[in-house]
């Protein structure tokens, strides 16, 4: 293949570029990103970067020289505006048009805007990219009262950081428990207790009706029941939308994400896609799904690169994820969606416990809280398809590692 163009210079885009070179692509390689930064890590943005004095450059995956060494034409602050599939060309915002023999879409997601009156107020912030994080960090430094809208991973990480900075913090969540879409009640309750113990006020099952401007540049967050929460800073973390517009306009199949098969191929054989922007198939699971995680960005990008190189390998890697809130490290191995039973290993406490999920008697996922060693073991058990009985998982005295050796 002569020229490969990658649209989206994030975690998946970088991995694709590196895997293409490693896999033997010696033709031209373009990595097009609309942000002004070279590919960088997002996870620290809601954690260390926000909490500490942390230089921007420490977020960058690779120094700029790396792209020269790899012979990758990295275009920053450059937006791709259209894909002309018939002509095999990509149009860029600067007027340039690049022909391609293979194309990869790694466009990620963007934040879902807060759909209430007054949401355009400058006190309202979001967190997706480094520019957002810089602005948020600056506003946080002068803030006393913070309202976080959305009790998901990012919102809760920001809430914990704001408490560290000694702000008064309220979290408003529409559902009746935290992280409800991905966590069972026992984990939601554990985190609710944790955040409350650190002095954060949780408003569960509460709707935000409006953001009302107040005198001194602050706002009042009006809730559905009429009550108001004064805030110097509002952080909305109510989910993301896949950046699929380019693909939709080009006539590629999309369904809340760019649809790809287990080889990361879109409905056009010359175009692959990977990372947060895809609705994909993983051989481990029956249903296609979209995931926002480092693991998926990296592993799926490797699959996409192999497909472009004609070395197609299906995607079957085990999903994993982590979230840090206060002194608690939550680590997820596998996907628990579709489980029909679960057992606890250990009692819910800061000392650590895990939740083991089963479907038709088969272990499908493990959430660990402050049990890093158990999380790593779970990844090995799940990757290898080791048979674990619920009673074994629930018995802290039973040595799960022994099962691994046995298989």
């Amino acid at each position, binding site marked *: 293949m002569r020229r490969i163009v990658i649209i989206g210079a994030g*975690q998946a885009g970088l*991995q694709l570029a590196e895997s293409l070179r490693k896999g033997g692509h010696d033709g031209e390689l373009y990595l097009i990103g609309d942000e002004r930064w070279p590919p960088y*890590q997002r*996870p*620290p943005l809601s954690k260390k970067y926000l909490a500490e004095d942390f230089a921007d450059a*420490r*977020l960058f*995956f*690779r*120094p700029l*020289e*790396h792209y020269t*060494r790899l012979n990758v034409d990295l275009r920053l602050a450059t937006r791709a505006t259209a894909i002309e599939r018939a002509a095999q060309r990509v149009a860029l915002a600067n007027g340039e048009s690049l022909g391609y023999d293979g194309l990869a879409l790694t466009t990620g997601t963007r934040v879902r805007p807060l759909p209430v009156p007054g949401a355009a107020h400058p006190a309202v912030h979001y967190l997706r990219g480094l520019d957002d994080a810089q602005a948020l960090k600056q506003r946080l430094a002068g803030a006393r009262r913070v309202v976080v809208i959305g009790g998901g991973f990012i919102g809760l990480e920001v809430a914990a950081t704001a408490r560290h900075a000694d702000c008064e913090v309220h979290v408003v969540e529409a559902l009746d428990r935290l992280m409800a879409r991905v966590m069972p009640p026992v984990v939601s309750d554990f985190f609710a207790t944790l955040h409350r113990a650190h002095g954060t006020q949780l408003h569960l099952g509460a709707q935000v009706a409006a953001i009302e401007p107040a005198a001194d540049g602050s706002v009042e967050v009006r809730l559905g029941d009429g009550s108001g929460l004064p805030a110097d800073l509002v952080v909305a973390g109510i989910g993301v939308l896949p950046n699929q517009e380019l693909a939709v306009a080009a006539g590629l199949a999309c369904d809340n994400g760019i649809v790809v098969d287990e080889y990361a191929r879109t409905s056009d054989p010359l175009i692959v896609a990977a990372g947060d922007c895809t609705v994909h198939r993983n051989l481990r699971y029956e249903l296609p799904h979209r995931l926002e995680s*480092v693991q998926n960005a*990296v592993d799926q990008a490797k699959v996409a690169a192999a497909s472009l190189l004609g070395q197609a390998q299906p995607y079957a890697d085990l999903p*994993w994820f*982590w979230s840090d809130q206060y002194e608690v490290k939550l*680590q997820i191995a596998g996907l628990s969606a579709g489980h029909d039973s679960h057992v606890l290993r250990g009692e819910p406490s800061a000392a650590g416990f895990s939740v083991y999920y089963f479907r038709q008697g088969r272990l499908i996922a493990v959430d660990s809280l402050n049990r*890093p*060693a*158990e*999380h*790593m*073991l779970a*990844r*090995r058990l799940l990757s290898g398809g080791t048979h674990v009985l619920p009673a074994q998982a629930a018995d802290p005295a039973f040595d799960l590692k022994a099962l691994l050796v046995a298989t």
Partner: protein
Amino acid sequence: MPKVTYIDVDGTRYDCEVASGLSVMEGAVNNGVPGILAICGGSCACSTCHAYIDDAWAERVGGPNDIEDATLDLANERKPTSRLTCQVQITDAMDGLVVHVAKND
């Protein structure tokens, strides 16, 4: 600044200067040492920053804590001198450190 020498899987040497306080992983990434992939960015979650501390240094650098020890179990070809380089912080006392990059993928 402490000098750190990285030796990649092909045997190529990279003599680098790495500021105290950074991790051995950050030193490798900043200097373009191949093979230290560090996809989790130093969160001790991925094991793709795996390297072997040179025998002459292994004792001084020390071993992994429990978390790192468990993560190392996911790495390729673990040895007694294995460390996840994101968990090894450079200090002035480490001037001259030599590490051998492991096969990370």
